[in-house]
């Protein structure tokens, strides 16, 4: 996955992501594609969660999945989740759950609860940073005010790092793929460098949802695992989702 929160010169915030999924889950030789990635595309839906006929939050989901990986709470915050691989991974949390230790949250249920119940950007940030989890994760959070954007790197038990937007220091975007920001990405899976190169070329003056879509359409940020691209603006909870295809030649991940 690749998630971006960016702020333009007027202080307006944009949040977008490529949802990549299906690695090693079957390669379709005939279509030159990952089988699960291809089969997931028809299940992608936008959801509008309502109470009393009013939108509480919106999300982009796979049908049948009740957790959240991309969502927006109108006029409060936007949220995406990227997978974080770790030896102390989710199987440990599941094992503990089976043994009766159930004080951790399942990732998808935490993001769902945050989108449903958090009352502000800071409240969402606190919950995502402090709640014990069954599996590690990256949470990418955007707010509605200048400087409200961050990447929270989570282990199962703690926030290892919170990387905030800092306009005064020139950090007008934060970007997360699937690697800790203080470490180099896996040499065979470097989507971070090309995405940052394209964002830097775009410049803060020209950043917008269309230009972020350009970044997310550049290979290998766009790759064979990319199921869809979601563009979000916190204002009024604006969301757009597009199914993607990566024609050959295209990186398998």
């Amino acid at each position, binding site marked *: 996955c690749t998630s971006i929160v960016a702020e333009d010169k007027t202080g307006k915030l944009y949040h977008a992501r490529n949802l990549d999924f299906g690695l090693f*889950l079957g390669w379709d030789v005939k279509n030159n594609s990952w089988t699960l990635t291809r089969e997931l595309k028809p299940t992608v839906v936008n959801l*509008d969660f*309502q109470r009393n006929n009013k939108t509480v939050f919106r999300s982009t989901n*796979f049908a049948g999945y009740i*957790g959240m990986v991309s969502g927006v709470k109108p006029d409060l915050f936007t949220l995406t989740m990227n997978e974080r*691989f770790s030896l102390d991974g989710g199987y440990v949390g599941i094992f503990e759950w089976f043994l009766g230790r159930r004080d951790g949250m*399942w990732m998808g249920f935490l993001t769902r609860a945050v989108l449903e119940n958090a009352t502000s950007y800071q409240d969402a940030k606190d919950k995502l940073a402090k709640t014990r989890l069954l*599996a590690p994760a990256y949470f990418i959070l955007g707010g509605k005010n200048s400087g409200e954007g961050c990447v929270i790197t989570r282990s199962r038990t703690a926030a290892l790092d919170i990387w905030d937007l800092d306009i005064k220091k020139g950090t007008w975007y934060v970007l997360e793929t699937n690697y800790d920001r203080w470490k180099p990405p896996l040499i*065979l899976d470097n989507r971070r460098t090309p995405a940052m190169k394209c964002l830097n070329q775009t410049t803060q003056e020209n950043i917008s949802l269309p230009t972020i879509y350009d970044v997310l359409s550049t290979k290998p940020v766009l790759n064979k695992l990319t199921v869809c691209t979601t563009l979000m603006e916190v204002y009024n909870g604006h969301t757009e989702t*597009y199914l993607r295809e990566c024609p050959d030649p295209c990186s398998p991940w």
Partner: protein
Amino acid sequence: QRRSLEQYGEECKTKTYPPSGPTFKGNVPTYIINLDLPPSKRWDELMRDKKTELKTVVQNIKDIANTFFPSGKIVDIVDHKISHLTETLPYPFNEELQGIANSSGVPLGEIVIFNIFYEIFTV
């Protein structure tokens, strides 16, 4: 191998929006999830429309499991044992999962696995 992967890189794209062309595969439908409904009923409309697609995905995951464990024991455990995990999941998620299983016709254990796939996959 790194060099071969680098060949997939390209110059930064411009003017790809609005989406069209070979990298655009289609738009996505929108559904309302009514949180005022009982959890077991919230997903009925979506499942009515998407159960076939969901079954295809779940079958694919089962096929992969059966490739590695041809005896079929893994799928058997998922279908008959994992469903009990639902009872330990917090409200309203436990009831929503039960509702999705009922309306889609997919065994509850397989719906649960689909929903905790992230935790399993992070290994």
